[in-house]
């Protein structure tokens, strides 16, 4: 199992690095898709089968395709993105690295938390999910519908093409 973990982690981290470093947006998107597939593999390792499927459908299927679509629509695949100056990169590395150090330091202390040995391979399946979603997590589920409605309306307002009028 640990081999699988190393493999998936390697793929995820490498493709994540490629997302950040590759010059053309299309390459970034493709690498991000690979990264997300590797993360879905991690979810299956972690016994979250339903989540893995949702992750693939929503991220790889919807969001990433949307990104690709926009890049092609706006014809953005030119590699003319100007370089940031060296000191911004240095600042980014230093601030990010400090965060990394703090986080890894904190994460190491995680071994102190008692480990729970109970294991049920069926827990991440859709049946269990549905039961809890419509009992315990009813309100957030309903409230997120408002969020989606507003996202739809918002995307529609901004995306719609209009003639220029003189409005304040």
């Amino acid at each position: 199992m640990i081999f699988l973990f190393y493999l998936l982690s390697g793929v995820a981290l490498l493709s994540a690095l490629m997302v950040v470093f590759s010059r053309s947006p299309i390459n970034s998107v493709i690498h991000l898709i690979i990264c997300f597939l590797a993360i879905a593999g991690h979810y299956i390792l972690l016994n979250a089968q339903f989540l893995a499927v949702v992750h693939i459908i929503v991220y790889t299927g919807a969001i990433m395709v949307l990104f690709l679509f926009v890049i092609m629509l706006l014809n953005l695949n030119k590699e003319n993105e100007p370089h940031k100056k060296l000191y911004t990169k240095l600042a980014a590395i230093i601030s990010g690295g400090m965060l990394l150090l703090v986080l890894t330091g904190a994460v190491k202390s995680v071994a102190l938390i008692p480990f729970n040995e109970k294991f049920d391979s069926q827990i991440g399946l859709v049946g269990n999910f549905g039961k809890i979603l419509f009992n315990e997590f009813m309100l957030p589920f309903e409230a997120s519908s408002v969020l989606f409605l507003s996202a739809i309306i918002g995307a529609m307002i901004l995306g719609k093409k209009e003639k220029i009028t003189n409005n304040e």
Partner: protein
Amino acid sequence: MLTLITIAATGIIILYTTFFKSRKLLVPIAITGALTALAFNISDWNTNQLLFNNMMKIDNYSVAFNSVMILSLILILLLSHQYFKGVDKNVSEIYSLLFFSFTGACLLTSFNNFTMLFIGIETMSIPLYVLAGSKKFSIRSNEASFKYFIMGSFATAIFLLGVALVYGVTGSFNMSEVSEYISATAKISSLMKLGILFIVISIGFKIAAAPFHFWAPDVYEGSPTLVTTYMATVVKVAGIAALLRLLTGCFIGAAAEWQHILEAFIILSFVIGNFGAIQQQSVKRMLAYSSISHTGFMLLAIIAINQFSASSLLYYSLSYSLATIAAFAVLILVKNYKNSDASYESFNGLAKHNPFLAFVMLTAMLSMTGIPITAGFFAKYYVFLASVKSGYSWLVICAIIAALVGVAYYFRIIINMYYKESNSEKIIKDNYFVISLIIATAITLAVGILPQFIIGLI
């Protein structure tokens, strides 16, 4: 609960008015919806309810803050009729987005679970990203929209990391369970400390507390002024109410950890807010910076974390919201009339031909400065009292200095209005606008004279 449903339903009803092409009905429908919500909200007074498996907790705290926010919403809606005159596209959508965003704000005052906090923050923010960019052909509005979006999504990511760490330590998203866990363990683990740090920082982003304020001046300036008014009042009050609820209801056992963060927030907010505001030539930007400094005062009530915190914060929110709405309303009129970039000079000689507007602006500015008989004086007084009781005298001294510096830029407008000459004429304003200004000014004065009505509530 009915409050929430009414607000969301009003948003949907407003959406349908697009089909009837009846612009006259928009504002009355919106205000009726808001008033109904206010009535439902007040009927929840003294009924402590835990709803939906402890997801939501409706108590006097949430009812009081909801009322302040609904009052602000109604005043903003009253301003909107004149503001949107001449705009013929997407107006009803903008109103419904305002209401959807307000649904999120209501969730923020009454959450009892991190899931609800997350959904509330997002429901409040996502419509706002759109609203900030709703002047589609204005370059500044576009820029404001994407700056707000990028900073907002980054804050969300930080917030989620914080919640993940807290979840890892406690194994629960429920506020009371997390609180029990913290009080039961002797030593707070470093994961927990980091989690609290990240959560507080991300809410600091949302309420524009320095040093996480840098998006605020640009976004406030670029957005349509009405949306800026909404951001500066409702969004800020909701965020700060959520912060106090989170810190008292959940992280009270770890007070020593987050009090240091808040100290830094407060001092930096005073310094950056005030010195930023002094330098500005545009009144809109000045108000943006002054709102950062007001965040500092509000955080002063939170850092005290004693029995006076909630009531003094409520009073401060009310007085701040009213003064901000009045100031922005006058700014909208002056800006439209002069068709200018709202510099200080456009306020010259306002008192001569528009004495009513000048008086409204005068009370707003006095209230923001904290001069007696306006609400701002007692607001600052109670906040100071609360933090002195918890031993933060040195912060109060800083706050008093900050308030004195504030005189410099607030009084500049008053001097321009009353002592400078200009050839301005009478500015036309419709009835809704006048009603809104009268309500805001009247409550500012009434609450300033009789503070005990508000301060004894919660």
